């Protein structure tokens, strides 16, 4: 985060508060300040679509803040009214009147001369899986399937540990080049990929999913991803061409063990 932007914003707001500025200035400062915070505080830029949502909410709230109190409302409108009506502001008013169409013209010019970009794409990170998949001639019902070796965790911890070790070997032989040695999606090849590989440490990824879902994603890779997941935006190979079913289940055990996450359980009615 760019803390200095945040500190500057807080400082400006404190000064405005200390100077007891009018309600119009106060509201305008909040609006502009939040816009700048959203645009410049985060090192990784916030997408425009989210900024629009946030600014919409902020605008509505500021509107509510002003209109809830009749005194506040009249204080808000008074300078605007004075600006429009009083003769001493007339030159400035003319300037504003000219500036508005000029800004519109500039916006049109900017839009017309902008570098063409690919359209927005609503990529779904966890697309809905099919009801069943066929891997190495055996069919797996994804809605009810579970890792066949998961129960070893309690029934036979020794064998479970062995399977974790087998999974570890599979991971470091195949997966770690992209997903990284800490499973944070920062492997040595990661920076050549766009988007970068999934960060398994993020609680919003494998921690939210069933093991059968992971089995589907690993076995079928990008080519088996539905349209909404943007198959062309993933470099994940279909690992069923290189690994056995058992190896894939073992590596899934290892992913959860290493990250400390628990897989989502199959929910029964």
């Amino acid at each position, binding site marked *: *985060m760019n803390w200095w932007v945040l500190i500057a914003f807080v400082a400006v707001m404190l000064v405005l508060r200390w100077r007891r500025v009018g309600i119009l200035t106060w509201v305008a400062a909040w609006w502009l300040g939040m816009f700048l915070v959203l645009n410049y505080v*985060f090192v*990784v*830029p*916030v*997408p*425009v*679509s*989210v900024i629009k*949502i*946030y600014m*919409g*909410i*902020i605008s*509505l*709230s500021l509107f*509510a*803040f002003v*209109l*809830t*109190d*009749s005194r506040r409302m009249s204080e808000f409108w008074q300078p605007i009214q004075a600006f429009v009506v009083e003769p001493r502001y007339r030159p400035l008013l003319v300037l504003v009147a000219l500036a508005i169409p000029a800004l519109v013209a500039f916006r049109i010019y900017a839009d017309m001369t902008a570098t063409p*970009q*690919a359209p*927005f*794409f*609503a*990529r*779904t*990170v*966890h*697309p*809905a*899986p*099919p*009801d069943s998949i066929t891997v190495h001639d055996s069919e797996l019902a994804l*809605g009810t399937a579970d890792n066949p070796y998961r129960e070893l965790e309690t029934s036979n911890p020794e064998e479970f540990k062995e399977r974790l070790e087998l999974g570890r070997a599979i991971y470091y032989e195949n997966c770690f080049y992209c997903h990284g040695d800490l499973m944070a*999606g920062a492997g040595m090849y990661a920076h050549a990929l*766009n*988007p*970068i590989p999934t*960060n398994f440490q*993020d*609680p*919003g990824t494998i*921690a*939210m999913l*069933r093991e059968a*879902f992971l089995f589907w994603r690993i076995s079928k890779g990008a080519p088996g991803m*539905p349209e*909404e997941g943007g198959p062309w*935006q993933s470099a994940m190979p279909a690992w069923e061409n290189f690994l056995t079913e058992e190896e894939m289940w073992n590596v899934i055990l290892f992913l959860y063990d290493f990250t400390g*996450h*628990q*897989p*989502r*359980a199959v*929910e*029964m*009615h």
Partner: protein
Amino acid sequence: MSRKPPVLPILFGVLAMVAVIVASFKFLSTFDDKMAFKSPVRTKASVEAPAETPRAQALRESAEATAAKELEKPYEEAEYRTVPRIGSRVAIWIVAQLHLLFAAFVLAVPIFALIIEFIGYRTKDERYDKLAYEFTKLLSASFAFTASLGAGLTFMLIILYPKFTNYLMSVFSPTFLPYVLLFFAEAGFLYSYYYGWGKFSPRVHLFLGLMLNVVGTALMFIANAWLTFMSTPAGIAESGAVISTWEAITNYTWMPINIHRIIANVAFGGSIAAAYAAFQFLQAKTDEERAHYDWMGYMGNFVAICGLLPLPFAGYWLASEIYAFSQTMGLTMMGGAFSWLFIIQAILIGNLFLFANWYLWLGMGRIKGAERYRSFIWPMLVVITICFAIWATPRSILSTTEEIQAMGGSSHPMLGYLGVMSAKNTAVNILILTTFLSFVLYRRSGKIPTVSWAKQANFVQFLIFAGAATTVIGYGIAGYFVDAKTRIGFSVPQVGSVLAALVLVTLIDVFLLRKAETAETNWGKIRPISQYLLIMLAVTFTWLMGLMGYVRAGLRQHWHVFGVIRDTSVDAYTPTLGFATQVVSFTVLVFFALIGFIFYLTGLTNRKKYQELKGTAPESSTAPDLSAAPGLSAAPGLSAGPGATAMSASGGLSTGASGYNTASNEPPSTLKT
């Protein structure tokens, strides 16, 4: 001095114009006649030739052959029929949605009308009885619209989806006759409840209202079985053959939908009734009318908020049952193609909370003594804004290629944490808690407790609020460090603490404010923007219902009955999100046009008779002065004239010289909270 008009030139002009028109027609018909095909002049021999030319003969034979073929055509049952231009699905979608919106309104209003009537009966406060009647007045026309749209929907299903409708009828055949009988009973109870207002003993009338609700709810439960079966089928074989109708009825999502719809209907009905009050408030000409409709709007909004607060919990239960039924469907809903609609849903629900709070804050302006709570408003607004923003933060963000590249994926490395369940649950629970706090402060505005333990009670209430907020936020943060199953389990203490706070604070309030000093509430003295907020709340509720209805039905994707009966029509694809929202918006517009018409029709009962307006009314037809409560003067059964039997403030029957409202001993403009 005026000049005589030049008659001759005018006459000449008219004649000239007629002449020009006639000449034009003549010219055109002659031209047309010249251009038309005419048979050539035949010689005598050709005239005597057979009348039928070889071409005509061939045409005749061809027509006869076609007719013969038609007669031999075997009977084939149509699987689908189409509607020109818009297609069958959109046509059914619009009609079903409109039917559902009206049905929701017709089912909801009797629930709170009955409760309000009961409060009036118990407290012997006539105002509640009047208010309940005012709400009920909206039902009569709405019920007819609901029935008409229901009939339209049924016919359209039979015409457009005959095979599938036939299948549904075979699965649910035992439910249709009870449905029809219940519908008749609904009509009977509704109209006797409406027309019998003030005509029966209060207990009999309350019983009619109760039965109206029981029958209405039963009707909804049956209809819910049909539609939930389509999404989460049960009681059938893989081929679709019926094994158990009861299991088909009690499928996975039947009860969650029943509960969700009852609560949502109340919230929706309350908001529409409040919008009606706002509509009347903005048209009101006297302070008395404004006072009445201000109070009605407040009560409608109160009902809507009461429904809104538990609604997210019911929705959560429904969503978890969908997920439990099918992981595919669950992921399609929350993580797949439909998940984007939940961002819109979050924005709409956030708006609802903001508008509801805003309305309450504006309402404080009409209560003397509310000034002491003004300083609470801006911190609550900040909390609502933050929670609203968290709730509307998507996990997977709509991004350009460059933005995805910068973020390293579809989720933002920092804001992405706000897009997961722990953050969302925390935000919505705090939103509910804050809205409840707004309401508590609103209620307190006009009251000063007189009990000796008031300070201690306030402190305990503060502790309850703080405890609930700490529990919600604590579990929300802990949710980031546990497995999915435990995280899902955390929602129970979060919800539990909020519900417990709602109940405990209300209980303390009841005893605390008993015998409290009540300040004056200036009903009607509220800024007009509050009424626009009520209308916006109603529009938002309606839009939300349309949107979520689409999500629930659309989740089936290319299935009529999920996983069993496949949709093989030309519409067997999921429409784009943009198109879906356009259809929902169109439906909402049509609904408001129709409900606006119902408002207009209902408003007609408040108008004076035509003869009275013209000042030509015969003396005998002049109704008694029933204008103490606007909206009741021309109510059926309440204008029988001097000596008419009417329900008195005591809830019993009394005969009064001037009808319904003379018992009112205080003007509505000084109604107490």
